[in-house]
């Protein structure tokens, strides 16, 4: 078998302890998370952002695709445009909220796609091992060796550009790393005593994967997921830069930023507000992820 990382996990004792204690591990985690001020602040911030993205566009005086012919390039606070207007005289605040909504949706959905595929794939390969592991990971290698952009550009040109496809294309690329991480963790987990114990108790492979492997993968998976959501949002903005992102008049943070970057000396507000929004959102995800990691992973106590 190639590439098998036979790593003895230094946390054997703790994991076993946790397995014995059952759910109390999660109670501890919750308590630790609640004590993490950066994470809780980020959580609050993110909640506000999600709320704004969800209902905000209905509350602004303009709609996101409404062209005000007298307000082309209007700076902030002119004619009721709180954040100014863009090169077509469309209200930036409303477009920003819609863009945030689209980006968050892409981030969450694509990450969820990557999570589901990645965990299922990685856990199965790692746990069953042998020829199946070899074949499954070789497949991942093949996809890995395809430059990401090429893959997405091709998907876009073959199937035409549409919203759902962006989710799927990015998610379908991001699951690879997830699968590798999960497989590595599974390999080490399955050496552990409590898995042996479960097996001795007569549990089948499927049940062991679902009941013992997957829950114990949560730590690294969550940490990687917090890297994935911002990563996906960035990937979408990258596609937008190449002109392959969501279509006008719909928008996303990436589209707004790449348009803003073009006119940054002419209308800085078009770059500043979307960039700030994106940075705040992504940082919030990161701090929450860190907080979760610290909370779930008992070593950091």
């Amino acid at each position, binding site marked *: 078998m190639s590439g098998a990382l036979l790593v003895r996990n230094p946390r054997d004792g703790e994991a076993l302890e946790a397995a014995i204690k059952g759910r109390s591990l999660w109670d501890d985690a919750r308590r630790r998370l609640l004590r993490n001020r950066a994470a809780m602040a980020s959580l609050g911030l993110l909640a506000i952002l999600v709320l704004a993205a969800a209902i905000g566009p209905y509350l602004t005086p303009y709609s996101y695709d409404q062209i005000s012919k007298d307000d082309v390039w209007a700076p902030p606070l002119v004619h009721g445009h709180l954040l100014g207007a863009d090169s077509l005289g469309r209200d930036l605040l409303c477009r920003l909220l819609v863009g945030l909504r689209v980006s968050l949706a892409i981030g969450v959905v694509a990450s969820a796609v990557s999570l589901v595929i990645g965990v299922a794939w990685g856990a199965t390969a790692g746990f069953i091992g042998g020829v199946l592991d070899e074949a499954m990971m070789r497949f991942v290698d093949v996809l890995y060796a395809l430059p990401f952009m090429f893959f997405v550009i091709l998907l876009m*040109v073959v199937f035409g550009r549409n919203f759902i496809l962006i989710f799927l294309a990015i998610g379908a690329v991001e699951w690879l790393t997830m699968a590798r991480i999960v497989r590595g963790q599974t390999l080490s987990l399955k050496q552990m005593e409590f898995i042996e114990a479960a097996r001795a108790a007569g549990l089948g492979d499927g049940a062991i994967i679902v009941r013992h492997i997957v829950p114990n993968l949560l730590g690294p998976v969550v940490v990687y997921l917090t890297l994935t959501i911002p990563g996906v949002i*960035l990937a979408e903005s*990258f596609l937008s830069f190449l002109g392959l992102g969501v279509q006008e008049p719909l928008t996303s943070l990436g589209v707004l930023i790449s348009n803003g*970057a073009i006119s940054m000396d002419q209308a800085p507000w078009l770059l500043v507000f979307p960039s700030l929004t994106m940075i705040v959102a992504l940082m919030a995800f*990161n701090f929450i992820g860190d907080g979760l990691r610290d909370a779930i992973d008992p070593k*950091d106590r």
Partner: protein
Amino acid sequence: MLRFLLRRLLVALPTLFLVVTLAFFMMRAAPGGPFETNRKLPPEVEQNLKAKYGLDRPLGVQYLGYLANVARGDLGPSLKYPDRSVLDIIRQGFPTSLRLGVSALTLGGVLGLCFGVFGALRQNSPADYAITTLAVLGVCIPTFVTGPLLVLVFASWLGWLPTGGLDDVRGYVLPVVVLALPQVAIISRLTRAGMVEAMASNHVRTARARGLPERSVVLNHALRGAVLPLVSYLGPAAAGLITGSLVVERLFTLPGLGKAFVVSALQRDYTVVMGVVILYASLVIGLNLLAEVIQSLLDPRVKLS
């Protein structure tokens, strides 16, 4: 070790074959063709063009012919640049992309490692938070924003560096920095996480208990454990750099392969796209292999089989 390498190389070939096949048929399934423009091309002329490049034969025949040529090391002529072969184009563009990528990875690696170790050793200190914040910022700001911003500051205002082109070494500075920034962020994050874990691990605790000096504990025991996940990041990092170079080469008007690749894909220059894919795929496969070898050298517990 030798047996392992040999086996891996044997596996790499079918991998490459699959990549080529997938790319070939996806490219051909894409709408449009290399000779589509807004000019009226008389059908006869189009026929002449297609015949010249063998595009009038059945797809399967073209595919087999292409495979046979690739096996002989012939990547064919470019469809859009009639005076050039794909190898010409790669030979001219790749060195620039390679220099950019290697420099950015080195810079990103050194800085990221330093920041990561520093952060882990001073956990929850203001410096740690500053580094974490910077790292997050580094990932959060897209290259196409940092690029123009850095150009604005260092080229337009301060006048230290050129805004584009590669006429001397200074031309590389901004593109490399822009390309390295996300890598610094990711690597410092990975290092910090790895270090924190390693510092808490049994064998570091044991080393400490044995009374070894802190410096030796950090460098010999903790860092070695922390670098492992980094090494496996080598492959994805290369892929990330390839992607980043698409943006950077455009922002700084650099004659790299990344730009040639996007343009060719959009223009349906099938042979160039395939050539670049083969090159990049081999590169990523090679780097992943390299990562495994380094891992086994760093950590005796990792066995190559």
